[in-house]
């Protein structure tokens, strides 16, 4: 176990090294240096750059003239809100659909679900988002086109999580503001969750089918345990392992998707902020945004690795 943890830490070090070299190169593209370096040598400047990062000085945005780290932290909750909501949607629906399909293998439901998930898998998210806007916002008028909340609500950003902030304004607007925020959140979240949902549904189905073939399930069945109990109690636990393993891929897909989703729905999060920085060549913000988003992905993968070491006894033993 210690060996595999050390290996993980080694990977982490290489990751951080590669990442900071990339963002250092990014920060060097700026016309005016984003940090006051003492040395002229790029090699020593890199170490000074790391020192600045650790001290929390991520540079000043050339457009907004504000601290990049502060800017990032202000936009981040909007993105987190969208990602968490979309992830909940993707995992619950994806698991449910996958389980449903595996219990009725080969039936019309299974075939429909698998075809749909293949379609979902091939869907360009930027087109999907626009189709949803066209149908639900512009034609049916069910959901707002863009933004996080309607203009008539004056919400003080306490936590910057709109769903929480609107609840904190409960005595001013009742639940109206909260529902309005939720209403704004639905369509972007559906857009973002579609592809992960399709992948989770397919994975759940195939992994559950593989587990259901195994000997211990046959034993359980021969003991007369009900089909429901076999799936929920005996099979699902083991079937979830490979699904956990691909969650790392999911976070990459979500991170790429959230940039496009925010762009389509004018969602004031990190993705939109980063794209604006790229198009206006604000290298301090680009460097900070790439750095922060990557650290999140790396941290997520690290937690996931530890979790699977913890959950899988075979990985725990020293090889």
């Amino acid at each position, binding site marked *: 176990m210690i060996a595999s943890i050390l290996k993980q830490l080694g990977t982490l070090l290489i990751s951080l090294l590669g990442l900071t070299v990339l963002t250092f190169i990014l920060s060097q593209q700026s016309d005016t240096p984003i940090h006051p370096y003492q040395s002229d040598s790029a090699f020593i400047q890199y170490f000074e750059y790391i020192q600045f990062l650790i001290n929390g000085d991520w540079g000043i945005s050339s457009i907004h003239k504000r601290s990049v780290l502060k800017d990032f932290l202000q936009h981040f909750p909007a993105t987190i809100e969208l990602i968490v909501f979309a992830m909940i949607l993707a995992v619950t629906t994806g698991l449910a659909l996958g389980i449903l399909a595996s219990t009725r293998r080969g039936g019309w439901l299974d075939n429909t679900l698998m075809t749909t998930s293949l379609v979902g898998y*091939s869907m360009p998210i*930027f*087109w999907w988002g626009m189709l949803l806007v066209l149908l639900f916002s512009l034609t049916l008028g069910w959901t707002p086109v863009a933004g996080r909340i309607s203009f008539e609500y004056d919400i003080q950003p306490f936590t910057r999580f709109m769903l929480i902030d609107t609840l904190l304004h409960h005595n001013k607007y009742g639940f109206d503001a909260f529902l309005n925020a939720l209403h704004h959140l639905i369509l972007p979240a559906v857009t973002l969750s579609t592809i992960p949902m399709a992948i989770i549904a397919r994975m759940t189905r195939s992994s559950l089918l593989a587990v259901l073939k195994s000997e211990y399930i046959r034993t359980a069945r021969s003991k007369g345990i009900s089909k429901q109990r076999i799936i929920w109690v005996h099979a699902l636990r083991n079937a979830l392992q490979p699904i956990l393993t691909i969650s790392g891929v999911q976070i990459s897909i979500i991170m790429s998707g959230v940039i496009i989703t925010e762009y389509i729905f004018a969602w004031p999060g990190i993705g939109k902020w980063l794209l604006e920085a790229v198009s206006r060549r604000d290298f301090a913000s680009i460097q900070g945004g790439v750095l922060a988003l990557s650290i999140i992905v790396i941290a997520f993968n690290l937690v996931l690795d530890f979790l699977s070491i913890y959950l899988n006894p075979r990985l725990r033993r020293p090889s």
Partner: protein
Amino acid sequence: MIKLPVSANNRAAWTIFRQNKGAMIGAVILIIILILAIIGPWISPYDPARQFTNKILIPPIWSPAGDFNFFLGTDDLGRDILSRLLHGARLSLQLTFTVVLIAALSGILIGAGAAFLNQTLRSLLMRIMDLLLSFPSLLLAIAIVAIIGPGLPNAIYAVVIVLIPQFVRITQSSISDELNNDYVMAARLDGASSLRLLSHHVWPNITPALTVQLTFSFSTALLDIAALGFLGLGAQPPMAEWGTMLSESRAFIQFAPWTMTLPGLAIFLTVLSINLVGDGIRDALDPRLNR
């Protein structure tokens, strides 16, 4: 495991592939799209950049307001959408082919080299590849475009760099797997050189895995190029690139939905058919993975 001669394997694979309905449908759609992309410039009614200033935002002909001269309608500048889609097919597929070809060649070379490196160097290289793989591809592409600047050539470089690690990983791991087999050891004891081992013994056995990877990278490359075009970081207007066309249509979704639905449909159908074919090839080449 019994290793069949490659040609027998291929014939068996084709039999399985042919029975896969989805894969065959995908193959047919893909072939049609390829043909359209190749003959596109000759059958497209107009020049894709030509602006009919008195024919702006004409809907496709199945709508009552349609015009027979413009089968799929026109966009906000009065350009014929059918012509733009046909030229776009050629452009998008050409770009995708180029990107995948460069990425595959460099990735396979690096991966094959890595398989013969010593333990420390190889594991260092593979860690770096894992790092690149764990990165959100679009974020990496955006970071690269941010360094070298927006525009089509730079977007192409970015997507190539994003795709390379996948080929390195799969080449290296399948070569390492094969090298542990007894038949390779037998050949090595017979005095075969590393290069001969690689080309005569290992290569035929890793081509299935590489073929599957190759197919799926076509859909990844197509999507990423279109996404960068859509975000304004890749191909720039007035280029008839599908992602760029989608991006230009954003302002007119409500009044002229066809300017958005049609280019998107083109991207979607191409990606879907590639994925269908990819699924079919994977199931055919590796029956053990068969569901």
